[in-house]
């Protein structure tokens, strides 16, 4: 009997566990926007990283089992420390525990070559321009991708 109880607890825990988004974004205005936006969306917890070096560090930690593996990554491309989104994605794809995590590029950098490189070669799910993806479009999109109603 006690064993069954434990199992039930685990099931409950997993079903109520919040979806984890790792959002890599350096602009404070946009960080504030996305935090506000996610704040209105129950069932999602947000982790924001503003520097490329910290993002690479987090990938290492995920691989080592120290940090939690995200359900979805929103990735900006141009970051202030020069470790840009393409590099982060490349490292993610080379790291076993993060290589299958869905990554959505959310940037204002519109280079077609970059888009092709990231979506075709580095397997990014989608290349999105921030000015086009305002919250009213982004919120239902994220809910759908995370399997939330």
């Amino acid at each position: 009997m006690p064993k069954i109880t434990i199992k039930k607890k685990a099931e409950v825990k997993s079903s109520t566990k919040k979806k984890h988004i790792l959002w890599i974004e350096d602009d404070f205005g946009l960080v504030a926007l996305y935090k506000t936006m996610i704040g209105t969306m129950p069932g999602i917890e947000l982790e924001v990283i503003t520097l490329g070096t910290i993002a690479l560090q987090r990938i290492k930690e995920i691989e080592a089992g120290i940090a939690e593996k995200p359900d979805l990554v929103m990735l900006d491309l141009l970051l202030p420390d020069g470790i840009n989104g393409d590099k982060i994605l490349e490292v993610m794809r080379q790291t076993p525990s993060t290589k299958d995590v869905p990554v959505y590029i959310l940037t204002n950098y519109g280079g077609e070559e970059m888009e092709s490189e990231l979506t075709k070669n580095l397997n990014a799910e989608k290349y999105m321009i921030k000015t086009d993806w305002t919250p009213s479009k982004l919120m239902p999109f994220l809910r759908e991708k995370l399997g939330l109603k």
Partner: protein
Amino acid sequence: MEKAEASQKVIKIGEPGYVNRNCWLARNLGYPPSKRCQYCESKFRNCLFERYLVITLILVSLLLITSYLLEQNISKLLIVSIFVLVIAYGYFFNKSTEKLIISNFEEGKAKNALKELSNSLKQKVEEQTSELRNQKEKVEKALVIEKEANELEKHANEELKHLDENKTDFMLITQHHLRTPLSVNAGFIDLMVGGTFGKMSAKIKDVILRLRESTQKEIDVVNELLDVSSYQIGKDMIHLDHPIDFEALMNETLKDLTAEAEAKGIYLKYEKQGEIPKVPADRMKLKLVFTNVIDNCIKYTAKGGVTVTMKVENDKLLISVTDTGIGLSDEVIQNLFKQSFHRGEQAKKLFAVGKGLGLFLSGKIIEGHHGRIWAESLGDGKGSGFYIELPVKQEINQPIKVENNVSTNSK
């Protein structure tokens, strides 16, 4: 100078002008005739004269002795015979020697002449060789210059390519920086309109909607900035990879523009004529063309409205967009798709927010689809018509690079 050079020149044995006092002796000891010099030859000729003189003297002496002996009663026959023999010997000896000497001398002369000829030929050959050498040097110099010019050209082209790449990078970064604050504005406005920050009064909501509109306009301008930039660089490609449902595309475009037409109080209608087949086209870019053309018509129409029709004629898809606006002058029609930043004089008067770049880009995109785009005036003040013609049978092939030379002259 020439004399000095001549005196310094060493004249070899056998050459004309050669003087060697030892030669006379040498010849007598059996040197071949070719080694004799002119000096020796002249000495030898003098020597012949001396010989004739000696022989004549001997003969005269013999004659005198003979006369004396005849008087002394010695055999007449014997003396006459000796006399004749001596004369014959002297004559023939001298004659054959002279012939030999002369022939040798002639041979020497001929050899000298040959040598002279050979020398002059050699000189000519040398002259021509040096001329050829000069010409060869000139050609080589020209080749070096050409090679340098080619390298310069190659370098210049690389530099130009590099500049183009830098320009693209610069434009992309600029666009990124312009977009970032705009996406913050647009994002928060979006959340406000969505009610994230609570219910707004009607007045505030009105202001927020205006802010949303102007922010969107600015986003459009920034987006267009890069479109033009990439077309200027000639990097943009037309991808004719999928057959496109033109009706769906047109409906989508019209849906986006309906609000703008309604806001102006004009109609926007679509009339289909017959069945429209699917045609391979670049959906995204064609949507840009439809949007630009229809949007342009809406902007310059204050009364009435805009009518879009689509039909297929002679294997060509013809899309017409006609309006009841201010119309177009012939001058404007001619330059409409050629120059960027170009708007008609009438349009300026109305202070319409025109996007001169839009039609220019549209022209380039249609060109990339092997199609045709043109405008016609329906009469002054009666409106204008824009026409797009696309071949129904497009070949699905490699991306087409859009060639361009954007003029930034504005009139």
